[in-house]
């Protein structure tokens, strides 16, 4: 049986690393090389690794001389591997030996396979590993198979991710580079493997993901996460076989749109409605239709978007501490959501005529339903009368689609 190098990058998570290493130490097969690449941890990682040597004699520990960037940590841990096969896995996951052995066996038997992708299931810590695996398999069963380049675009269309491969070191050396703005080993990584042979997908679980407090799961709508994701799928297309390029490019468009919609969804769940709107618009910008879904987005989130716009206006107006809201239902609905964001702000309801007559004060901001009020205030009080917005202003600014004409 070929030797597997298990490569684990880590940084300041000694306890999680220890948990993972102790688990690996229980593996029955002895064909493993374990490499820990320590990205300049300032905690007790070096000591933890030392104490584990007794249970994991083959452990190799490399301490990086300067902090590496995100994209370099995986390749750094793989760089020193000497096994026939490699898996790069995170310190907080839990590798599953049965799945690894199955992958190794397959590659031992079939030299045309350069990488094997197993299943990865969530683990909540409450039950045994076997139970979690059984539950995962029941929930998301996967079809097994061996795939060549002719299947690349089909995989690109159907799979969400292609992560955590177990791959041949000999191919890895000829196919992979540490690439900035890119998470390693997703679609681009798969495409690189496929230049040198087939890939296999197996139903067996190779790792459980164990959620914990220290998780710095990159929020999907952050700049670097977006750029990584786009990079991965764009670079994938370059490696698609020439006769399926058109199909790959179209799929890239669909995936990009789908990803933006996912970001939009996540942002609205995080209460960031204007960001959600922005990602929705970005999706629309790459679609030829979509006015209908845009209209329904607008209908469900308009009040929340306006409240956020009002909140932003409030935040940049200096010393204001009171919101004077015209006393009508549509304004009150926005003001209620505004109040959730700013519990410290006093909100006063007032009718339109009183608002027009009221001399401006530095601490007061107005939000009105009658669109003519701001103009009347401005005529009356000049520049001082500009800390006022009409519901229509925000409504128009927040729209995604034009009114049907």
């Amino acid at each position, binding site marked *: 049986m070929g030797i597997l190098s298990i490569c684990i990058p880590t940084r300041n998570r000694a306890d999680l690393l220890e948990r993972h290493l102790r688990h690996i130490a229980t593996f029955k097969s002895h064909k493993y090389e374990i490499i820990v*690449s320590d990205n300049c941890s300032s905690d007790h990682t070096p000591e933890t690794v030392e104490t584990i040597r007794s249970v994991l004699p083959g452990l190799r520990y*490399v301490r*990086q*001389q*300067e902090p*590496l960037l995100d994209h370099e940590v995986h*390749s*750094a841990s793989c*760089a*020193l591997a*000497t096994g026939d096969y490699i898996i790069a896995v995170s310190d907080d996951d839990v590798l599953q030996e049965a799945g690894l052995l199955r992958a190794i066996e397959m590659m031992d038997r079939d030299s045309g396979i350069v990488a094997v992708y197993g299943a990865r299931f969530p683990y909540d810590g409450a039950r045994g590993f076997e139970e979690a695996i059984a539950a995962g398999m029941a929930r998301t069963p996967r079809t097994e198979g061996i795939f060549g380049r002719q299947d690349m675009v089909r995989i690109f269309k159907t799979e969400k991710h292609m992560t955590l491969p177990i791959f041949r070191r000999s191919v890895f*050396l*000829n196919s992979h*580079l*540490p*690439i*900035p*703005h*890119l998470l390693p080993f997703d679609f681009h990584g798969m495409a690189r493997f496929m230049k040198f042979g087939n890939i296999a997908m197996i139903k067996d679980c190779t790792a459980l993901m164990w959620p914990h407090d220290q998780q710095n799961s990159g929020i999907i709508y952050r*700049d*670097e996460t*977006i*750029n990584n994701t*786009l*990079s991965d799928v*764009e*670079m*994938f297309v*370059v490696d698609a076989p020439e006769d399926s*390029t*058109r199909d*790959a*490019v179209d799929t*890239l*468009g669909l995936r990009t749109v789908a990803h933006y919609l996912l970001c939009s969804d996540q942002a609205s769940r995080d209460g960031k409605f*204007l960001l959600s709107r*922005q990602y929705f*618009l*970005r*999706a*629309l*910008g*790459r*679609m*030829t*239709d979509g*006015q209908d879904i845009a209209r329904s987005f607008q209908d469900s989130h308009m009040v929340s978007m306006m409240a956020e716009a009002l909140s*932003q206006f409030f935040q*940049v*107006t*200096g*010393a204001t501490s009171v919101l004077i809201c015209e006393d009508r239902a549509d304004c009150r609905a926005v003001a209620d959501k505004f109040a959730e964001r700013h519990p410290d702000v006093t909100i006063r309801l007032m009718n339109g005529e009183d608002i027009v007559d009221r001399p401006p004060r530095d601490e007061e901001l107005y939000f009105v339903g009658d669109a003519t009020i701001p103009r009347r205030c*401005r005529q009356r009080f000049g*520049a001082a009368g*500009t*800390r006022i917005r009409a519901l229509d202003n925000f409504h*128009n*600014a927040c729209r*995604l689609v*034009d009114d049907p004409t």
Partner: protein
Amino acid sequence: MSTLSICIPTRNRAHFLERHLRYIAAFKELTCEVVVSDNCSEDNTPEVVESLRGLLPNLRYVRQRQPLMAYAVHAACCALASGDYIFAIADDDFTQEAGLLRAMEIMDQQPNVAAVYGRWFRHHGIGTLEETIAAGKSGMAGRDRLEGVFGREDALKIFHEAHTMEMPVFRRSVFLNSHLPLPHLLPFDFHGMGQFMKHGSIAIIPDCVVVMSVHDQQNSRQIYADEIINSYLADFETFGAGVPEEMRRRAVVEVDVRTINKYLLSMELAREQGRFLLARQYLMRALGHGRLKDIRQRVRDFEQVYMTEMIAEALSQFYRVTRPTDTIVCEDTPECFAVAELFFKRHPETTIEVMDAEEILARAHSDLDLYFVGDPTLPDRRRQCVGLANGKIRTYYNLRSACRILD
């Protein structure tokens, strides 16, 4: 007579702000208020603003209660404007009175024009601003440049032809109904233009509205940085989302074309800065959109010129993550030697020993050696000779193959 709000966001650059405000104070004809939005400066910005009140009676100063994100600063200072028209401009630039007067005149005469876009020129501190403007204008002469009044039906034409659409002078009444502070987005570029066009026309004029000063304190980011690329893409895409229904199909194509061009520009910059693997990546990203002609030829040209550089950079990355290393052992072949020379420029602190294959096979193992060899069979042969698996060895073929873009 209509009024203009000149809106200036600032942070910790009191001397630039003072320079700009004094410049504006010397305007002869323009009826304007100046709104300064101070993004929590820690320097003497508040005092400088106070001292200028005598010169600029219509100055309004707002100090932000908490530091704003980059995208919010422009929106913040425009939020407090009270003029009929607004112009948002940086603290270190020089607003040009003549250009602004012209823009206001156009909007006074044509109520349907929602925004006017003038020109701007860069001033490198040599000669007077007037000379910079004159030189800029003559530099533009002969170039095809858009000029005139454009409606929504022209949005895609402008998107296709214009480099950027920044620094508009715009109607406050339209702004209130069309603009939001958007994260991941540079304010007032194509998306901003598209929003103005939903409420009227825009005018593009030859007059100069700004002279931009070029100086040390400029925190210009690289266009390939995550946040900059994402801002540009967001701008293109949100612009695309705003074009009228019947132009959508073309809009999607134009968004794609601009995306590709941005990637190619990123590639150029990365290449100029010696980041060849990043340049390769942006080239691949551009290729991924499938619209470029002669893809294979482009890739061949790129690989032909930069392959050795890319390999040297890949070797350098390998070296960086496998330290400590005392000696780079390089096989004595012309390809390896060429790579080693470029590698040495990146790491002059290293010792490189050039040897032939036999010497490499005979060398005793040390964790402090890193091998770079030409003969693809050498790693296995050495493994047999020494009887030890060693991860710190790469062949020229490994790195070349990994750097290749197409088969």
